[in-house]
C-alpha cells in the first residue's frame, strides 16, 4: 500500500516535472505551425527522458549520489566545471522563463502588464523555498499541477482527426520551411530533455531517502510520470494544430495560445489556461531554483538539503536566493516567450555534456554495483547521446535562422 502511494505521488510529481513553460510553449508553436507533423518529436523526447530519469533515479537509489555529485567525483572538477557553468547559465534563463510564465498567467487574467507581477512571483517562489520542505514543494505544487489535465480533456472535446494524429507519431521530413521545422524539433527536445530535470530527479530521490529497494518504484515513476506528462504535451500540440493552425495563427505571444482552451471551454478556458500555465511554471520555477542550488552545493561540497533550515545550509539558500533575483531581473530585459524558446534551444546545447557522463557512470561498478546498465540500456542511451550531440551542434544555427 505504501508503495502504491509512493508510486501515485511520484507519477503526479513526474507530470509536474515534465510539463513546464518550455513544453507548453514549444508544443503550442509546433502544432500551430506544422499541424500534427511534429508529434513524433514529443514521443522521441519522452522516450529519451524516461530512459535518462530512470537511470538518474537508479544512480541515486544505489549510490546515494546525485548526477552532479557523481560527475564531479568520477570525472573530476575540471570536467564537471564545463556542464556546471553551462547548466548554471541556461538554468538561469529557464528560471526567468518560468517566473515569466507565472507572471504572464496573472497578466492574462487581469490585463495588467506582466512586469508588475514579476517581483511578486519571484517573492512567492523564494518564500516557498525559504519556508517550505522538499515534500511540500515536490508534492504540493505537483498535485495542483493536475489541472493541466484540462488540455487532454479539451483535445478530446475538439474531436481532432485521430487518424491524422496517429500518422503524426511516425517521423517525417518537413514539406516546407525546413529550418523552422527542425528548430521547433530541437526546441521540443531541449524542453523535454531538460538537464535540470535529470539532476533534480536524482537529488529528489536522495532527499526522499530512496534505497535499492526503491528501484522498481523508480522505474514505474519514471515511466508513468513522464508518459502522463507527455500525454499533456501531446494534447497541447493537437489543440494548437486544430484551433490555431487552420486559422493561420502562429504563436508569437501567450495571448494567442489561450485560444486552444477558450474554443472548447469558453470563458473558463481563459482561467484554465492561466491556472495551468501559472501552476506548471511555478512548480518548474521552484525546481529550477532548487536545482541551481543543488548543483552548486554538490559541485563545491557544501551542505545541502531543502529539508534543512536555511541557517543550516546558508550557502545553499544563498544560491537559490540569488538565482531567483537574477531570473526575475532577466525578465526586465527579455520577452518571456522569446526567453523560453532561446533557453530551450540552449538546453539542447548543454544536454550532451551531461548525458554522456551519465552513460559512463551508469556502467561503473563502484557506483551501481549489480545495478549497472544492461547492453540494451547502453545501446539506447548511446542513441540518446548521439541525438543530444546532433541536436547540440545544430541548435544555435537553427536558433539564428529559424528562431
Amino acid at each position, binding site marked *: 500500500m505504501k508503495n502504491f502511494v509512493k508510486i501515485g505521488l511520484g507519477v503526479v510529481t513526474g507530470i509536474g516535472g515534465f510539463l513546464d513553460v518550455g513544453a507548453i510553449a514549444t508544443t503550442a508553436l509546433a502544432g500551430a505551425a506544422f*499541424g500534427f507533423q511534429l508529434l513524433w518529436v514529443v514521443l522521441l523526447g519522452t522516450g529519451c527522458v524516461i530512459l535518462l530519469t530512470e537511470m538518474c533515479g537508479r544512480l541515486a537509489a544505489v549510490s546515494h549520489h546525485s548526477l552532479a555529485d557523481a560527475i564531479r567525483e568520477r570525472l573530476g572538477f575540471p570536467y564537471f566545471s564545463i556542464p556546471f557553468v553551462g547548466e548554471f547559465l541556461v538554468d538561469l534563463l529557464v528560471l526567468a522563463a518560468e517566473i515569466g510564465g507565472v507572471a504572464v498567467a496573472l497578466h492574462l487574467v487581469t*490585463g495588467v502588464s506582466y512586469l508588475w507581477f514579476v517581483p511578486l512571483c519571484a517573492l512567492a517562489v523564494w518564500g516557498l523555498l525559504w519556508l517550505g520542505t522538499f515534500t511540500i514543494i515536490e508534492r504540493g505544487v505537483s498535485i495542483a499541477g493536475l489541472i493541466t489535465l484540462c488540455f487532454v480533456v479539451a483535445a478530446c472535446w475538439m474531436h481532432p*482527426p485521430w487518424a491524422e494524429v496517429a500518422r503524426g507519431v*511516425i517521423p517525417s521530413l518537413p514539406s516546407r520551411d525546413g529550418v523552422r521545422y527542425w528548430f521547433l524539433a530541437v526546441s521540443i527536445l531541449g524542453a523535454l530533455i531538460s538537464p535540470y530535470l535529470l539532476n533534480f530527479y536524482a537529488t529528489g530521490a536522495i532527499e526522499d531517502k530512496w534505497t535499492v529497494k526503491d528501484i522498481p518504484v523508480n522505474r514505474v515513476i519514471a515511466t508513468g510520470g513522464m508518459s502522463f506528462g507527455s500525454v499533456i504535451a501531446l494534447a497541447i500540440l493537437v489543440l494548437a494544430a486544430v484551433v490555431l*493552425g487552420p486559422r*493561420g495563427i502562429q504563436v508569437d505571444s501567450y495571448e494567442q495560445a489561450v485560444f486552444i482552451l477558450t474554443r472548447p471551454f469558453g470563458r473558463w478556458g481563459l482561467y484554465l489556461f492561466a491556472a495551468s500555465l501559472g501552476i506548471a511554471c511555478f512548480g518548474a520555477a521552484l525546481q529550477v531554483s532548487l536545482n541551481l542550488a543543488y548543483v552548486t552545493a554538490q559541485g563545491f561540497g557544501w551542505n545541502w538539503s531543502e529539508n534543512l533550515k536555511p541557517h543550516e545550509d546558508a550557502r545553499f539558500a544563498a544560491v537559490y536566493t540569488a538565482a531567483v533575483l537574477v531570473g526575475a531581473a532577466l525578465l526586465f530585459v527579455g520577452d518571456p516567450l522569446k526567453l523560453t524558446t532561446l533557453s530551450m534551444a540552449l538546453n539542447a546545447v548543454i544536454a550532451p555534456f551531461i548525458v554522456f557522463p551519465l552513460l559512463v557512470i551508469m556502467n561503473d561498478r563502484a557506483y551501481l554495483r549489480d545495478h549497472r546498465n544492461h547492453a540494451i540500456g547502453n545501446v539506447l542511451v548511446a542513441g540518446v547521446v548521439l541525438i543530444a550531440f546532433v541536436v547540440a551542434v545544430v541548435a544555435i*544555427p537553427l536558433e*539564428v535562422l529559424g528562431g
Partner: protein
Amino acid sequence: MRFRLWIVTVLLAGCFGAAACGKSQDVKVAELHDAAGSWAATLKLVTEEWTRDALPSHFVQSTTSVAMTELQRAARRVRSTVGAAASGPADEVLARVPLLNEAVARGDQAAAMDIVRALVSAVPPKPTPPVARPR
C-alpha cells in the same frame, strides 16, 4: 588535443557563420507577411471570442497591444533593411488596430466584427491544415 581544437573551431565557425549570414531579405519580407496574416487572424478570433463572451474586453485590448508592438518592431526591421514598401501588410493591420480598440471600448460588437473581417480579407493568413503530412 589538436583534433578537439579542430572540432571546436568548426562548431564555432558554423555558429558564427550562420549568425553572420542571418536571413535573406526575401525571407524577412515573407516572415513579416506571415506575421501580419497571423496577427490579422488572431484579432479576428479574439474578437469572435469576445462577442460570444468567451473573453473579457481587457483581453482583447491586451492582445491588440501585443499585436501592435510585435508588428511595429518587425515592420521597422524590414523597413530598415528592405525598404518602406515591404511592410505593407503589417501597416494594413497596424492602421486598423486603433479602430478595433475603439469599437471594443464602445462595446460595439458588430463594428468590431466588420473591422476584423475586412482586415482578414485585406491581409489573408496562411492556414496550416490539421494533418500529419501536408501536401
